[in-house]
C-alpha cells in the first residue's frame, strides 16, 4: 500500500515558495504528475510541450511526437487550470538528435539520442526560455534527484526508484542548467506517481509508459535510417561508392553471410543475423570501413575496459584515477571500476567483465547514488577477455 497522505516533495529539492515554474510536459503521466504536484504545492506553474518531430502515418503515437500526446499535455493543463504552450523545436531536434542518430548508425555506432535531446534540445533551451518567461525553474518528470552539493553546487543523483532512474540521460547538463531544474518525481517510486495521478484525477492517469524511441515508435531503426539518410550531408564519404551490402564474418575473418547495411546491427545483437542454424552467435564488432559485422559467441562479448570521449563532468574528479561505478547503457547496473580521466574522456577498468560494451552509447560514472559525469563509448578496440 502506497502512502500518499504525506507530502512527497523534498523541500531541499524545491524552489522558494510561490516561484514561477515552467513544467515540460510530454503528454505522459510522469510529467503530468510533476506539474500537478507543484501546482498543488502552490507554485505558479505553466506547461510547455516541445514540438520535436512530425510523426507520420502509423507512427503518430508515442512520446513527445504526436498530436495526441500534445492534446494529452493540454488536457492535463486544462484539468489544473494552468496555461499551456507548444514550442517548436523541430529544427534543433533534427540537427542535434536525428541527424547524429542516423550518422552514428551508418558509422557502426549505437547512439544514445535521449542524452543529446535532454541536453541540447530540451533542458538547456527550456531553462533559457523559462528566464524569458519570468520563470526561475524548469520542472520535468525525470526520475533523478538534484540535491545541494559541495560549494553551492547541485549534485545530480539517481532517482529513488532504480528501475525508473533516468540520471543516465542527464549527465551532460552543466551547473548553470542543473541549478534551475526541479525533478519532483526523483524521490518517488513509479507506483507512487501512478497513485498521485489517480488521487489528483489526472486525465492520463492510466496511460501506458512509452518504451521505444519517441521518433521511432515502431522500433524499426533500419526503416527509419533508410528514410532519413541524406547523402548530401555526408560529403566526406561517398555513399554511392560504398558497398550496398557487407559481410558477416567470424573473428578469424571467415565469411559466414551477408547483410544489407551495418545500421541494422548493434553490439550484442543475436537476432536477425541471417546465419541460419548452428550455435547462438552475437555481434561483437561493426567495422564501418568495409561494412563488416563480426560475430562470435556469448563469451566473446565480455570485455573489462572501455574508453569514452566527449566527457562532461557534473563533479570534476579531484584525482585522475579513482574508484567508481560505471554504467554502459541505460538498462545496466552500474559496475565497479577504476576510472582514469583522459584528455577529453575517460577509461574504465571493470572489476568484473561487462557484456556488450557498445560504441556510441553513453557511459556514465557514479559515486554511489551520485552522478560524477559521463561520455560516449568509442570504437577503440576493447581488450577482450580471453575465453
Amino acid at each position, binding site marked *: 500500500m502506497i502512502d500518499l497522505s504525506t507530502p512527497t516533495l523534498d523541500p531541499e529539492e524545491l524552489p522558494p515558495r510561490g516561484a514561477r515554474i515552467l513544467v515540460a510536459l510530454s503528454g505522459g503521466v510522469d510529467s503530468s504528475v510533476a506539474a500537478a504536484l507543484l501546482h498543488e504545492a502552490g507554485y505558479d506553474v505553466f506547461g510547455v510541450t516541445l514540438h520535436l518531430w512530425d510523426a507520420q502515418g502509423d507512427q503518430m503515437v508515442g512520446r513527445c511526437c504526436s*498530436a495526441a500526446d500534445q492534446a494529452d499535455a493540454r488536457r492535463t493543463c486544462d484539468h489544473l487550470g494552468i496555461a499551456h504552450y507548444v514550442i517548436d523545436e523541430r529544427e534543433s531536434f533534427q540537427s542535434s538528435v536525428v541527424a547524429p542518430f542516423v550518422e552514428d548508425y551508418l558509422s557502426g555506432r549505437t547512439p544514445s539520442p535521449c542524452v543529446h535531446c535532454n541536453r541540447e534540445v530540451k533542458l538547456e533551451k527550456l531553462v533559457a526560455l523559462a528566464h*524569458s518567461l519570468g520563470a526561475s525553474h524548469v520542472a520535468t518528470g525525470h526520475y533523478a534527484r538534484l540535491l545541494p552539493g559541495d560549494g553551492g553546487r547541485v549534485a545530480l543523483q539517481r532517482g529513488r526508484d532504480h528501475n525508473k532512474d533516468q540520471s543516465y540521460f542527464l549527465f551532460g547538463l552543466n551547473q548553470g542548467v542543473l541549478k534551475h531544474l526541479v525533478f519532483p518525481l526523483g524521490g518517488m517510486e513509479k507506483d507512487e506517481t501512478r497513485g498521485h495521478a489517480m488521487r489528483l484525477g489526472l486525465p492520463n492517469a492510466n496511460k501506458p509508459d512509452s518504451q521505444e524511441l519517441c521518433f521511432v515508435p515502431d522500433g524499426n531503426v533500419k526503416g527509419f535510417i533508410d528514410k532519413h539518410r541524406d547523402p548530401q550531408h555526408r560529403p566526406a564519404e561517398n555513399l554511392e561508392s560504398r558497398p550496398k551490402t557487407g559481410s558477416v564474418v567470424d573473428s578469424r575473418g571467415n565469411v559466414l553471410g551477408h547483410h544489407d547495411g551495418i545500421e541494422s546491427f548493434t553490439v550484442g545483437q543475436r537476432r536477425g543475423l541471417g546465419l541460419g542454424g548452428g550455435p547462438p552467435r552475437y555481434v561483437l564488432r561493426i567495422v564501418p570501413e568495409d561494412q563488416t559485422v563480426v560475430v562470435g559467441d556469448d563469451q566473446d562479448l565480455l570485455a573489462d575496459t572501455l574508453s569514452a570521449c566527449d566527457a562532461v563532468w557534473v563533479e570534476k574528479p579531484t584525482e585522475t584515477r579513482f574508484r567508481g561505478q560505471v554504467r554502459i547503457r541505460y538498462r545496466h547496473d552500474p559496475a565497479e571500476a577504476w576510472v582514469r580521466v583522459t584528455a577529453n574522456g575517460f577509461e574504465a577498468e571493470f572489476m568484473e567483465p561487462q557484456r556488450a560494451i557498445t560504441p556510441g552509447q553513453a557511459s556514465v560514472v557514479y559515486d554511489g547514488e551520485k552522478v560524477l559525469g559521463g561520455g560516449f563509448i568509442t570504437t577503440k578496440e576493447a581488450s577482450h577477455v580471453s575465453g
Partner: protein
Amino acid sequence: MPAEERRRVYLDHHAATPLCTQAKDRMAAWMDRLWANPSSVHRAGQEVRAQVDRARREVGTGLCVDPEDVVFTSGGTEACNLGVAALAASVPRVLTTGWEHPAVLQAVLRLRELGKEVHVLSRPWHMGGLEDLQTWASQGRGLVATQWVNHELGCVWPVLEVRSVVTSTGGMLFLDATQALGKIPLTGEWTPEGLSDGFAVAAHKMGGPPGAGALWIRRSGWPRDGATRTLAPQLVGGEQERGRRAGSPDPLALTGFGAACLALDQRLESMGKIGALRDRLEAHMRERWGWRVNDGPGQRVATATNMSGPVPASGGSSGNVGWEGHTLVTALDLEGICVSSGAACSSGVQEPSAVVEGLYPGTGRSRTSLRFTLGPENTGEDISQAVHVLDRVLQRVV
C-alpha cells in the same frame, strides 16, 4: 500570482472580438428558444425560421445589400471558400495575392485541380501590383479574389482601383471583407455591390459570435456573365439557404450576428478612440524600444498595429539580441496580455508571419513581429497596463 488572477488585457481583436452588448443581450434572450429546426414545417420550426430571416434582414441592412442575396455560412472561411468557388465556376483564370488569409489563398490554389489558370500576385497593389493586374487582366477574362483589409497588418488595400481594372476588362472581383466590416463604413461606392461580385464577412470579427458568417453574391447581370448565379455548393445534403449552402444553420449565432450588424454604426464611431489608443501604444514601442511598425503601404484601419523588435541571432529563442515573436507572445500571455504573432498551425506551433515576410522579405522582421489589435472595449488603462508589462518583460533580455 497565478496568471488567472491578473486582470487580462485583450489585444487580439483581429482573431476574435468579444460579443458586443447588443449581440450578447439578443443571444441571452433567445438562448433556449432557437433549438427547433428552421426547415421544419411546424410552428416550432417556423418561429426559429422567423429569427433566421430577421437576422438575414439585419445582416442585409448592415451590408447595404438585398437580404435575399445573403447566404449564411459557418464563418468567414466558409464564406470565402464558397464565394471563390462560385465566381470561379464561369471563368478560366483566377488571380489572388500572396498576402491573403489562407481561406482565400487555399481556395484559389485548389482551383488548379479544376484546370483553372491561377496567378498569385507578389507585388503589393501600390508597389507595382496594380500594373501587374492590368497586364494579367488584358490577357483575358478572369476572377480576382482578394482582401479589402489585411488581417495581420491592418492595411487598407486600394479596392476601388482594383475594381476599376477588373471591370474594365469584363472580369469579376471577390472581396474578403472579413477585417473591413465594422472598421470601414459601407457607404457610397464602398458597398458590396459597388465594389465586388462577391463579398465575405464573419460575425466574430465585428462583435458577433463565432460560428456565423455571410457571403453576399451578385445574383446576375452586370456586367459580367449575365447568368443567374447558382452557387457551387461546398457542402451537399440539404436545401438550406435556397440550395446554396446545405446543413442546418446555427440560429442562435445568426441572431447574434444580426444584432451585431445593427450595432455597426456604434462600432464605427469608436474607431477614432481606438486609433488614438493604438497610436499611443505604437509611439511608446517606437520611442522606448526602437520597434518598427510593419504598416504596409497606404492607409490602415484604426484597430491594428503590427510591430517588429530587433531581430534575434539565428537559432536562439531569446538572448541579448531580441525576442522571437512567438516567445514574446507567450511571455506577455503569462502576464495577462493577449496578443498574437504569426498564424497558428494545427499543432499550436506559431509560424513566422507569411504576410510580414512577404512585405518585408529577408529583413527578419517576420520572426520578431507582434500583432496588437484593438476593439471598442479597450481603454486607456488597458494600454497603460500593456505598456507597463511590455517594459517589464522586454527588460529581461535587452
